[in-house]
């Protein structure tokens, strides 16, 4: 077996990290009083496959370590050990340790022996606390344990016997089958026959023995017992008896499995009765004992170091679309081949289809990069669990909108800032249980992590019902640290933003959880790097909310182009409610200035585009001449007064800020078909602008 194992390493690591995540969430979900055995099974299975994998790939340190965890879990699984909080904590610690080990191996770094040994000891202590049931577990584990336990306990593992009798063995009155029965009495016997030596039926002399056997004898057996059985035939055969190790066993099985295929046909013609047994035996062995081998087989599906897991359904959609695209293409080329004027209709249909398919294809390709935010959220229950015990607080963590899909880059970059925010909420936001009760709040604090789409943004909120930010003390602190002048006048918003300054920390005491004053400015910087903003809403004594707004990194937008004079603007299609031509009697003036119009039962403000954008060339200045595009953004509705609607198209979003700056009322720009630049309107910004 000269397969380059290194090519599977990446997959092994990926699967192991997934396994670790499963173990972690499983352990966190364990309910001490009423343990769900299925939950433990899940954890156990994850540990087991990590152990198997690491053994296969020769990461023996990992295999050893996981073995201990597995042993502990196995006892819990069998109900021989109570699931206790300390045990779960030790296991959680071990999961962390294992993560570190795997990370180190992946990066080809040195293992942190110290921490590994500490965790190992902790596990052993936990294990030996109830040693009564230890022994059988050891044995069970040993059997499924590859390589590791090679050296010391050969005698109790068993023997591999290669028995290759000479052709005249049968003539001397020795019956191999009887010998095998005797062997079977000693221990668990697997018999594999090699029929390669069997000649064709024509040449077969029934009195000759052409078969040879490989016997796997398992159990605690003395070598001499085996020798006794073979004593009589020793001179009439080639015999080798080797101590059985997993490696030998695996190799044997594989060799045999290979031979088995060739032998299959011959098997039917041979008169030896044990053949049938052998066949079924081999099948059984294959499925149970060569587990590491079978996990290997299914692995080579991903290899690149930066890979992405994509729902198969997404890929199926993609393939469907490509199929349709090909059909459209062939249809179009058929039309083009013998083109005549009466085929214009066909051509048009074809082009419409082409457009639709291109668009769908584009959407699904974009979709591939999208992954649910739960990839980020899933680590927080653990964080909350650890911190709440560390801080002696009672905290409930709620996750909302985990299925909100965001771009892969966002998932990768947002997780660190989020950890900071959640930690801050847990540490500074939520009060001690006693304080909470005194403040008339439930003893358990709630931290909510929520993700949702709003407009062209993804909003991720970290909300707590803790003590909120104290504006006065924030201010005092900032003055104290010389970050602002005593006389500086700050709005509420500006005051809250003080916490984003480097070197600012409100915690009275620094804890090792948070409060070193480096976190928040890094948080803001990271979010800004993603093109997002962070906003704080807080009420003293009631709680605070940190809202992160991130742009959808989808670089393409469905837009409606509108004309105002000689300028063309793009309105995101999603924000358009409808477009109406209004009559004079629909318009009302408020205080002589503000214009509103009545649309069904609603009064909406009119935003005259040419006025707020100072477009002098606007054709329509009278409300009856142009069109009102009713738009909605962040809960605000209004009618944009424009000259005309031009058409719908998909536009590629280009940042205005890269070389220029933010412009109020404009979110970004795009390049039109003729190469000119059009601005994409930001509806909430426009409304603000018109209110000024």
């Amino acid at each position, binding site marked *: 077996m000269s397969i380059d194992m290194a090519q599977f390493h990446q997959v092994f690591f990926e699967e192991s990290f997934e396994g670790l995540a499963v173990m972690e969430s499983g352990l966190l979900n364990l309910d001490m009083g009423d343990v769900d055995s299925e939950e433990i099974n899940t954890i156990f299975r994850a540990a087991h496959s990590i152990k198997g994998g690491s053994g296969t790939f020769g990461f023996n340190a990992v295999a050893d370590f996981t073995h201990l965890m597995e042993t502990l879990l196995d006892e819990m699984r069998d109900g021989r050990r109570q699931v206790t909080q300390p045990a779960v904590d030790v296991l959680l610690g071990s999961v962390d340790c294992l993560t570190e080990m795997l990370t180190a191996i992946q990066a080809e770094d040195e293992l942190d022996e110290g921490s590994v040994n500490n965790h190992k000891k902790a596990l052993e202590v936990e294990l030996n606390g109830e040693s009564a049931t230890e022994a059988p577990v050891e044995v069970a584990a040993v059997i499924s344990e590859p390589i590791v336990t090679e050296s010391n306990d050969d005698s109790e593992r068993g023997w591999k016997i290669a028995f290759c009798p000479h052709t005249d063995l049968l003539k001397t009155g020795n019956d191999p089958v009887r010998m095998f029965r005797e062997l079977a009495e000693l221990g668990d016997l697997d018999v594999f026959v090699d029929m390669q030596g069997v000649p064709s039926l024509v040449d077969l002399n029934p009195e000759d023995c052409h078969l040879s056997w490989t016997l796997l004898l398992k159990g605690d057996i003395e070598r001499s017992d085996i020798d006794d059985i073979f004593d009589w035939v020793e001179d009439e055969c080639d015999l080798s008896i080797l101590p059985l190790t997993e490696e030998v066993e695996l190799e044997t099985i594989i060799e045999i499995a290979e031979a088995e295929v060739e032998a299959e046909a011959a098997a039917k013609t041979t008169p030896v009765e044990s053949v049938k047994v052998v066949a079924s035996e081999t099948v059984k062995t294959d499925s149970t004992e060569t587990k590491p081998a079978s996990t290997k087989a299914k692995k080579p599906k991903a290899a690149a170091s930066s890979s992405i897991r994509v729902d198969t359904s997404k890929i199926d959609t993609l393939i469907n679309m490509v199929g349709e695209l090909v059909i459209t293409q062939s249809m179009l080329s058929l039309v083009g081949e013998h083109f005549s004027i009466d085929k214009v209709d066909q051509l048009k249909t074809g082009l419409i289809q082409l457009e639709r398919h291109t668009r769908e294809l584009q959407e699904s390709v974009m979709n591939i990069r999208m992954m649910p935010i739960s990839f980020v959220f899933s680590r927080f229950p653990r964080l909350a669990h650890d911190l709440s015990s560390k801080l002696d607080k009672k905290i409930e963590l709620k996750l909302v909108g985990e299925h909100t899909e965001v771009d892969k880059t966002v998932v990768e970059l947002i997780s660190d800032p989020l950890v900071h925010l959640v930690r801050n909420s847990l540490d500074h936001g939520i009060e001690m249980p006693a304080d909470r009760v005194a403040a008339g709040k439930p003893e358990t604090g709630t931290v909510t992590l929520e993700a949702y789409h709003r407009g062209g943004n993804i909003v991720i909120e970290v909300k707590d019902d803790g003590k909120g930010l104290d504006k006065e003390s924030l201010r005092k602190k900032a003055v104290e640290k010389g*970050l602002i002048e005593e006389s500086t006048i700050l709005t509420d918003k500006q005051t809250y933003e003080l916490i*984003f*300054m*480097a070197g600012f920390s409100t915690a009275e005491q620094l804890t090792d959880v948070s409060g070193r004053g480096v976190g928040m*400015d890094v948080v803001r910087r990271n979010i800004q790097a993603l093109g997002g903003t962070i906003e704080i809403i807080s009420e003293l004594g009631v709680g605070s909310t940190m809202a992160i707004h991130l742009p959808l990194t989808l670089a393409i937008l469905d837009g409606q182009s509108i004309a105002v004079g000689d*300028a063309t603007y793009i309105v995101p299609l999603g924000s358009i409610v409808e477009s109406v031509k209004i009559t004079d009697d629909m318009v009302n003036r408020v205080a002589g200035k503000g214009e509103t119009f009545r649309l069904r039962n609603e009064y909406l403000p009119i935003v005259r585009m040419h006025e*707020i*954008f*100072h*477009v002098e060339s606007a054709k329509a200045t009278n409300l009856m001449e142009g069109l009102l595009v009713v738009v909605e953004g962040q809960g605000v509705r209004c009618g944009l007064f424009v000259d005309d609607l031009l058409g719908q198209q998909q536009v590629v979003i*280009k*940042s*205005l800020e*890269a*070389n*220029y*700056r*933010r*412009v*109020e*009322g*404009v979110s970004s*720009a795009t*390049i039109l078909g003729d*190469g*000119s*630049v*059009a*601005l994409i309107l930001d509806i909430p910004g426009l409304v603000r*602008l018109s209110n000024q």
Partner: protein
Amino acid sequence: MEQNTSSEEIEAKVPENSVQFLSFTLGDEEYGVTILSVQEIRSWEPVSKIPNVPNYEKGVVNLRGAIVPIIDLRERFNLEHSEYTNLTVVVVLQAVCRGKNRTMGVVVDSVSNVMNIQKENIQSAPDFGTKVSTEFINGIASVDNRMVMLLDVEKLLKLDGLEEDETEEDDE
């Protein structure tokens, strides 16, 4: 002068202690920017206007897929505005502002020359009092008895609006 420059360019190497500048004119005045900040020189083409910005910010254009703002330097320096003709030139400048590479086009009357200026011949800008804003002027050099004002591209690229973020950043 022109011959000088070209012969020097053939020699390829910039003499030590000297800096190469691209000079251009605005009316009767001659300005220079360091040649390393010049990305390209284009002719004027219509821009897409940006609403609610100072007059000198003419708008944005599509420069090979990037959105690049165009600034009229005459108006920026409060000189009299002149009509754009086929000869009006846009110098595309780039500089690193706050760690980011920014590109911007400036409208000038015409581009005149590439010149080598000895570092010791560069004087700091004299104080013109409050009448003339010298904030963008790095120094003044005299070339063939003409005065060339050397511009600070980085400051030039910092538009008014950008300074807001600037102050925010400073707050930190």
